[in-house]
């Protein structure tokens, strides 16, 4: 299977270890075989090992090591935030965060909602079953 996501200048990656865990960063330069120079609008530009990054499908058009302002403009132009949040990977992360921040009361309300939903589904299912059985 050939590689589809390459390390290149402008590749957007997700940090999967360390202080900036969960952040979206942009690769702005490659230091050596193992490390990249990485930047994001809300962090100081710094090096990170590739092992700490998971590449995403999103790339942006930037020169090598752009100024913060150019980086932010390029990210706006490529609409990185919306692309990420509408991708299935991004949506899953958002849901995970929401679930982790649920209150004890929220979890109770969630349980009631799940029971209600499954009740409605079961009703429909039994209705369909009955129709099917009667038609046979």
């Amino acid at each position, binding site marked *: 299977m050939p590689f589809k996501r390459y390390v290149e200048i402008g590749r957007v990656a997700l940090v999967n270890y360390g202080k900036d865990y969960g952040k979206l960063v942009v690769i702005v330069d490659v230091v050596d075989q193992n490390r990249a120079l990485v930047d994001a609008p809300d962090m100081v530009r710094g090096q990170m090992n590739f092992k700490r990054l998971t590449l995403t499908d999103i790339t942006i058009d930037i020169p090598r090591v752009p100024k913060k302002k150019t980086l932010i403009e390029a990210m706006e132009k490529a609409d990185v935030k919306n692309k990420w949040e509408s991708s299935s990977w991004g949506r899953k992360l958002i849901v995970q965060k929401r679930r*982790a*921040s*649920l*209150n*004890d*009361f929220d979890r*109770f*309300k969630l349980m*009631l909602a799940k029971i209600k939903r499954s009740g409605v589904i079961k009703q429909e299912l039994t209705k369909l079953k009955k129709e099917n059985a009667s038609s046979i």
Partner: protein
Amino acid sequence: MAAKRKTPIKTRNPDLIRGVGKYSRSKMYHKRGLWAIKAKNGGVFPCHEPNPKPATAVEKPPKFYPADDVKKPLLNKRKPKPTKLRASITPGTVLILLAGRFMGKRVVFLKQLTSGLLLVTGPFKINGVPLRRVNQSYVIATSTKIDISGVNLDKFNDKYFAKEVENKKKKTEGEFFEAEKEDKKKLPEDKKEDQKAIDAFLIKSIEGVPELKAYLAARFSLKSGMKPHELVF
């Protein structure tokens, strides 16, 4: 020559380093009291007449001298303060009880008593927990809060919850062998009335929030996959 003092006067101006005093000339002027020592007063610092001391009672010599010198323990004037209340526990917070008869019940916090224990109520109609005292350590504070302003909690203190003292009756020999007739202790009516008064107000606020009543009626339990150190309460 002026009268010699018994002890040579020690300077009121300590040295910071040799040659440099801590206080300036004007400060020293004030410290020595030169602003008040004037010729018209006789060259002494003026002072009020001392208040006449009240007459002390005549002390009688003690009747008994102990053989050995007994050391008196040092005086302890420490007054213990009520336990520090966790910042997450404020009046109206929903708490989860972790131990005891009502383990797992979700309960409303009312106030902290002077002994440090927390005053808590079910409300009784919702989950069967009466007005009760509970230790802060056996409680998880959730972030759900109910508005309890308007409830009067002044009459509840530690004395309210003290056990009632029975008067002991002397038993004759015959009565000893009889089975002890103990009537089951009934809750006095006024305590029931107090419970109802507090609950009436609380239940109104609770019914204002959807599903809160069912939440308080249910017990909390850890299910499979729940990690307490990762749960947000």
